[in-house]
């Protein structure tokens, strides 16, 4: 048990009032971002189930052009990547930055404009794809009229986070701030350059897929990963009341990620018609990613050491630790997948799909769920109203993503082995995959049930159904014996 220093009551009250004032300053915009994100998560979940079902039941919802597999799958990707994860990334970044800088948010109304622009962009993107305006560039499949809304919305958020940082009262720059500042510096550049070089002033030939996969991989690596890892670095120590095990290691991990992650995208084009040195350099970069991943993994594990029992009591910690553990696993797996021998089998199969979902859901989304469970009550002033709904959400999400990952990894691996064998017909491979694809739909339904429970909790909290704390502005303090 950690020793607890006795703190004068007036100091405690003053600090609590300051924290409440900071939370209050960003309440409106952050709730707008997070509520919008949740809407897109639900929309993306429904699209995902439709797309998944079509893979094993091809006559499901036929005759409706808007719901053909190609469109629904692209719309799902836009809804969850641009709508869900990106909006949480922005909302969460604003909140954490204000707290870590110990400063109120200035001109919060402009962030409403930003969130509205982003929502319009996402609506145009998802709706446009379903109506047939999608572009055949993976991850950048939004119709050409959507990106200006994203660029404008993102520009405002980046400027606001930078302005908050400049007004900071806390002089030390915590590791989470490094991650957030970097993500909001990298991503606008990443997105604008990719859109510029693929659509606005198209590069010719093989340069296009190179830019495409440089963007796709870095969407996860330089946008979602930094904010999700930064969130874990904030939430885990705060929730258990214990500083990070090694702050030195956390800073080393950040700079190693900054140096090596952006190399890794070309491993998606191994075996493709690109210069061999490019994919080899990318494999080297992927291997170097062991450094930041091991640094983060050791740090999170050692910080949690002797505190794992708290997973029983804290919903936010439960989701965050699940995501943090998955980060280590999915990153190790990603590095191994970049090896050419491994790629010969796993590439262009469902194995890659399983890996992508483990990263985007098991790691990023689970940490973002943890962020909601910690952040929302502090913004609304109300506790979550139902433990049961939280438990349903956690078990549906964790069991769902496990089924998804295991079934598609096994099915995808054997799919790759069979595709490399000229004696096996394509029809037999398709039939072999059916039970694995069916498992994916079951997993998707489980995940969606969890999302509905989560959305219900969220709406109940916003509606004021949760118990209001009367003990001051610090919520959920577990009494230490």
């Amino acid at each position, binding site marked *: 048990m950690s020793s*607890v220093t006795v*703190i004068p009551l007036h100091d405690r009250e003053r600090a609590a009032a300051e924290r409440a004032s900071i939370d209050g300053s960003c309440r409106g915009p952050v709730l707008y971002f997070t509520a919008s994100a949740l809407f897109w998560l639900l929309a993306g979940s429904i699209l995902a189930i439709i797309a998944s079902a079509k893979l094993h039941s091809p006559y499901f919802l036929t005759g409706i052009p808007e719901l053909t597999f190609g469109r629904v799958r692209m719309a799902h990707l836009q809804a969850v990547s641009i709508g869900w994860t990106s909006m949480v990334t922005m909302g969460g970044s604003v909140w954490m930055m204000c707290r870590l800088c110990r400063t109120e948010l200035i001109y919060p109304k402009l962030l409403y404009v930003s969130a509205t622009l982003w929502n319009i962009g996402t609506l145009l993107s998802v709706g446009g794809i379903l109506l047939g305006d999608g572009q055949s560039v993976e991850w950048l499949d939004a119709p050409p009229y959507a990106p200006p809304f994203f660029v404008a919305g993102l520009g405002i958020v980046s400027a606001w986070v930078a302005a908050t940082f400049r007004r900071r009262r806390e002089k030390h720059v915590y590791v989470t701030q490094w991650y957030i500042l970097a993500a909001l510096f990298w991503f606008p*550049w990443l997105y604008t350059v990719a859109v510029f070089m693929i659509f606005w002033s198209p*590069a010719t030939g093989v340069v296009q897929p190179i830019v495409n996969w440089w963007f796709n991989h870095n969407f996860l690596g330089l946008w979602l990963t930094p904010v999700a890892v930064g969130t874990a670095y904030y939430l885990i120590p705060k929730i258990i009341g214990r500083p990070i095990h090694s702050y030195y290691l956390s800073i080393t991990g950040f700079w190693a990620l900054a140096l090596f992650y952006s190399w890794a995208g070309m491993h998606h084009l191994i075996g493709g018609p690109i210069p061999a040195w490019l994919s080899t350099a990318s494999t080297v970069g992927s291997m170097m990613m062991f450094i930041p991943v091991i640094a983060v993994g050791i740090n999170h594990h050692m910080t949690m050491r002797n505190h794992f029992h*708290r997973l029983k009591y*804290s919903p*936010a910690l439960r989701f965050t630790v699940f995501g943090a553990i998955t980060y280590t696993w999915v990153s190790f797996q990603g590095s191994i997948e970049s090896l050419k021998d491994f790629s010969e089998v796993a590439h262009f199969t469902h194995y890659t799909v399983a890996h992508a979902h483990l990263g985007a859901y098991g790691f990023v989304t689970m940490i973002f769920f943890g962020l909601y469970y910690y952040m929302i009550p502090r913004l609304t002033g109300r506790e979550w109203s139902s433990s049961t709904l939280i438990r349903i959400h956690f078990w549906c999400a964790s069991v769902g993503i496990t089924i998804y990952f295991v079934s598609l990894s096994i099915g995808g691996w054997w799919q790759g082995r069979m595709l490399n064998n000229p004696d096996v017909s394509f029809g037999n491979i398709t039939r072999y995959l059916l039970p694995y694809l069916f498992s994916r739909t079951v997993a998707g339904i489980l995940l969606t049930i969890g999302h509905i429970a989560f959305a219900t909790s969220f709406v109940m909290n916003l509606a004021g159904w949760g*118990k209001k704390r009367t003990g*001051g502005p610090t919520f*959920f303090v577990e009494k230490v014996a």
Partner: protein
Amino acid sequence: MNAANVAMFAVVIGSIVVFGTATILALGWAFRNGQFDNFDQGAASIFGPDEPVGEPTDAFPK
């Protein structure tokens, strides 16, 4: 070399220069500003009198 290729090279080279410079400046600023001087203090900077080290801050609602 056509205009599209010139634009592409300008973007790539410009990005390398801008991001390389930004990284060096950020690291230089952090060292000069003493951000890496005291890691223990840095790790504890997220705690305060209302949420001190040793007090957990989250639990399932009762």
